[in-house]
């Protein structure tokens, strides 16, 4: 490998390792980014769309009451680089989601990580280039 190309790839790896905050996202003031929570429920809809992919799920509490959660995250273009695809979940799947919830207490959040029925974890960090 040419030295110049090797140097460039090293520089790139360094840039990606700087820990650019994954959730440096415009408009996140509505979410409580200091207190992430985990919810577990059944997917009712998975919208693989721009500008934000959305997952809707029914979460049952210990009294049996169902809350309808709306969870958003990044665009498909960014998520594919983190290993997502439009087929990762479908209605009926039981998933766990780590999210930062809406400050006003409504069942709305911004996703940081999702655990699929088979145990696979999907996060937001880009995988190796």
């Amino acid at each position: 490998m040419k030295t110049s190309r090797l140097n460039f790839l090293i520089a790139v790896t360094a840039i990606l390792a700087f820990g650019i905050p994954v959730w440096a996202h415009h408009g996140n003031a509505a979410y409580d980014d200091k207190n992430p929570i985990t919810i577990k429920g059944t997917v009712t809809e998975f919208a693989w769309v721009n500008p934000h992919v959305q997952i809707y799920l029914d979460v049952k509490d210990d009294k049996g009451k169902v809350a309808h959660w709306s969870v958003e995250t990044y665009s498909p273009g960014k998520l594919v680089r983190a290993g997502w695809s439009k087929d990762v979940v479908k209605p009926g799947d039981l998933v766990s989601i780590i999210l930062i919830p809406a400050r006003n207490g409504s069942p709305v959040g911004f996703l940081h990580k999702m655990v699929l029925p088979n145990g696979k974890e999907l996060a937001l960090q880009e995988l190796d280039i």
Partner: protein
Amino acid sequence: MSNPIRPTNLCAACVFSLLLSALGCGGRAVSGSSQAAAAPPDFNGVWSAPFTPDLSKVLGHQPPFTAYGAARFAKEDEIDDPLTKCLPIGPARGIQAGIMPFQVVQTPGVFAILFENQHTFRIIHTDGRSHPKDLDATWFGDSIGHWEGDTLIVDTVGVDDRTWLDTAGHEHSDQLHLAERFQKVDNNTIKWTVTFEDPKFFTEPWSVTLPITRQNTEIMSYSCEENEKDRAHLRRSKK
């Protein structure tokens, strides 16, 4: 890894480029060097930069602001981001933002960059023209480019000063001059270097380099105005 250059291959290349120039093709006069008539690399395809919301994180520090530039940056607020109003992303941020990919369609006279972000595009003229004398500012500016070996060199002026350079709120004036280099490193990697020059905002030009990687996807649809309900709720932050 690389094939040793055999005398027969060299001769064949020379003959071929002489033939091309005799036929009036090739675009450039053969000056005796076998490099002169080499075709530019092929950039066609779908590409993306890594997610880069803040150029100062790539630079390692804030850009060299003038007093005016620093004062503008201190007052920046998300409510003023053109993207929150569904206005265009601009020529450099469209590449570097990394939230949505873009497709390159390359012809001899035009290098077109089609952004998934709001179905917008840049046209880089590679037919040898200069910037027009009377230039009105536009959302993606006026871009002219030429090839140097494996690199496309692009010059852009006339960018509307309402675009932002990134999501962190680095802005520019109508004096912005962008110099870009798109270097094909291998079939799946472009080394993109962009230099920002704007004497109103920055005391000197500054550059960042990012890798652009080939994506195994098609570009998708995006209508910013569709189902838009949140803009009415945006409030200016207290600073």
